């Protein structure tokens, strides 16, 4: 995975100062959350369904090798091709080779996080292949030259005014901030692309082992067009995205859309088993399914294997107070929010991503909303520990901890220190109703984006002693 060259803290700082970003994030994540709640309420026994969804994910991963083999055999039986890619470059190589074989000049794409993970667009473009994103959100950020900031709503960091400017500039339509007009303009532009493309590339939500089917869910119809109009369909999936059978699929689908967008089901649930057959008039002549590993098989053997249960619904992003403040781009990674904070270091190595597990207050909101009840806070702690062991602790934190242990093991010194900080902090906070606006270095970073409460008048120890004297 590509590591950004600006530090995590610089990106967070920038995000926190961006007023427009805040407006957009607030509007989007707030709505997502309300809709999720009402959708879950429409499920008679939401808790039982979530429990079952979790059981299915856990069970499948515990025999992933067998299910993958079964899946591959059944895809091939239906006339499809299966490729395993150990890493991103293998995936890009395979897609490029399929494209070469079919003399592909233009590719239309449905939404795929795997393609973002492998930076496939760049790999195709370097072979002079034109790549067109067709999901409206993805199309917008492709025009803007950006990356998705949210798994489900790739462009939710943008306001409609910004998108209006962008479309005006890039596809030469008169400026408008009316979403209806913008959507119509994008439809017209993209319709031609669908009809003329040589290859369609899509993601995969679930692969069904027992039938060799892939399931893609979407609302716009771009996914169905991508997998129906062009001659060749290439589907990209992570090796962990398997479910055993169709009944299991129906369970996963009950929670996926509800958690993602608050719908009972997406508009389109597309089940594809092999390329077109028996004289079918449309659909691709060739279907290639590429299974990307890129570290997942290794993560499976670790303490954070549970993150592979994830079905990419995005609910934990919307619920996360940190994500809601800083947005997706501040994470600097393809997968953002709580799931990204665990998954990114797991796949890309803790040394390069040691800051991400810190991007959480461990409030537990992510675990609360996760449709498969992934214990994200537990894994964040595991990774924080790994970061510390890898010597990836900030110098001021290391110094602070040394000072702390030196002080607390010497009672007289500890007493003096608490008295000092109490009076110091109350003085500093006196003009601002008990809140400190600016801590002295090296703690200044904390107060840059938040206030710090002054210490209480009496320490716990003093209160304890006073109450026991009575």
């Amino acid at each position, binding site marked *: 995975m590509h590591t950004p060259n600006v530090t995590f803290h610089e990106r967070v700082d920038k995000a926190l100062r961006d007023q427009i970003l805040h407006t957009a994030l607030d509007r989007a994540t707030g709505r*997502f959350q309300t809709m999720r709640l009402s959708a879950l309420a429409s499920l008679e026994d939401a808790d039982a369904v979530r429990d*079952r969804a*979790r*059981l299915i994910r856990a*069970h499948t*991963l*515990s025999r*992933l*090798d067998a299910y993958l083999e079964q899946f591959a055999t059944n895809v091939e039986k239906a006339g499809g091709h299966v490729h*395993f*890619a*150990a890493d991103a470059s*293998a995936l890009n190589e395979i897609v490029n*080779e399929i494209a070469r074989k079919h003399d592909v000049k233009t590719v239309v794409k449905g939404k795929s996080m795997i393609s973002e993970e492998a930076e496939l667009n760049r790999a195709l473009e370097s072979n002079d292949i034109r790549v067109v994103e*067709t999901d*409206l959100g993805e199309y*917008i950020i492709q025009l803007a030259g950006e990356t998705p900031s949210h798994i489900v709503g790739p*462009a939710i960091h943008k306001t*409609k005014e910004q*998108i209006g400017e962008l479309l005006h500039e890039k596809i030469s339509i008169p400026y408008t901030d009316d979403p209806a007009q913008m*959507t119509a303009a994008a439809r017209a532009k993209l*319709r031609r692309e669908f*009809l*003329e493309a040589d290859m369609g590339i899509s993601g995969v939500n679930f692969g069904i082992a027992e*039938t060799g*089917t892939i399931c893609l869910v979407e*609302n*716009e*119809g771009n996914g*169905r*067009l991508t997998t*129906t109009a062009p*001659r060749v369909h290439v589907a990209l999936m992570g*090796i962990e995205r398997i479910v055993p059978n*169709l009944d299991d*699929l*129906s369970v996963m689908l009950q929670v996926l859309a509800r958690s993602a*967008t608050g719908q*009972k089901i997406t508009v*389109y*649930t597309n*089940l*594809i*088993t092999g*390329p*077109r057959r*028996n*004289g*079918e*008039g*449309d*659909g691709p002549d060739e279907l290639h399914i590429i299974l990307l*590993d890129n570290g997942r*098989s*290794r993560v*499976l*053997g670790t*303490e954070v*294997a*549970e993150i592979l249960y994830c079905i990419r619904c995005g609910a934990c992003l919307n619920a996360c107070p940190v994500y809601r403040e800083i947005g997706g781009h501040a994470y600097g990674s393809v997968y953002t929010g709580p799931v990204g904070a665990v998954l990114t270091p797991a796949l890309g190595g803790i040394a390069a991503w040691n800051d991400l597990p810190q991007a959480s207050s461990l409030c537990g909101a992510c675990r609360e909303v996760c449709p498969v009840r992934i214990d994200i806070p537990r894994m964040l702690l595991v990774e924080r520990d790994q970061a510390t062991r890898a010597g990836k602790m900030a110098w001021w934190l290391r110094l602070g901890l040394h000072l702390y242990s030196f002080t607390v093991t010497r009672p007289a010194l500890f007493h003096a220190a608490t008295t000092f900080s109490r009076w110091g902090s109350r003085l500093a906070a006196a003009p601002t109703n008990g809140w400190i606006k600016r801590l002295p270095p090296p703690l200044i970073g904390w107060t840059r984006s938040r206030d710090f409460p002054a210490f209480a008048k009496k320490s716990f120890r003093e209160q304890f002693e006073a109450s026991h004297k009575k």
Partner: protein
Amino acid sequence: MRDDREQVLSQIRASLKTAHLPTARATVPPRVSAGQGERAAMLENFRRELELLGGLSFLAQSDEEAIEIVLKLLRDVGGKELLSWEDSEMPVRGLGDALQASGYTRQKVKLAKDAAERKNKLMTLERATVGITGALAGLADTGSLALLSSAARPRLASLLPPTHIALLQTSRLFPNMASFFAAYPDITREASNLAFVAGPSRTADIELVLQRGVHGPKFVHVVLCDW
């Protein structure tokens, strides 16, 4: 072509020896049967859900009534070119003749293997204003249609034109997806594509403002054949 199958599978097997997978069990316990729904209740549910999604439904008691409804809808939309499933695939007898008598032409969906020919054909199909299909089933809990592809049942009919008219027998309603799969356990072996369609195409990618009719049809009308 490069294939890392063995490498990936053997790493998975090695990892599974130490994997920490909370709540993993050897099997997932079987589910209590999804159950049968009562037709009238399912019908009501289906119509309500479809309407919530922005689709419309029309109840017909006979072939004649169904044809009348379809012709009326077509007149409202305008245009004479249609994409449609073959007559044998639709639950309404006499529809094909009625369409022809009213001057509608139905494009044959047959995309060539050749790239240029395929593109040309798609360009002509794109002119159709309405697509007509016959749904295999309806799911009451979500208002969705199950559409199964075949030579006589092109996928593009429910995808390319801005209006989609689906004919659905009310005897083919199921309470939900699980009960549908239970009734058709081998469905994926029959054709390469099974699509569940719940109402008109939509997006909320611009500030989560709902827009209907992005890439798929903006209007979905379901004619319920209740006889």
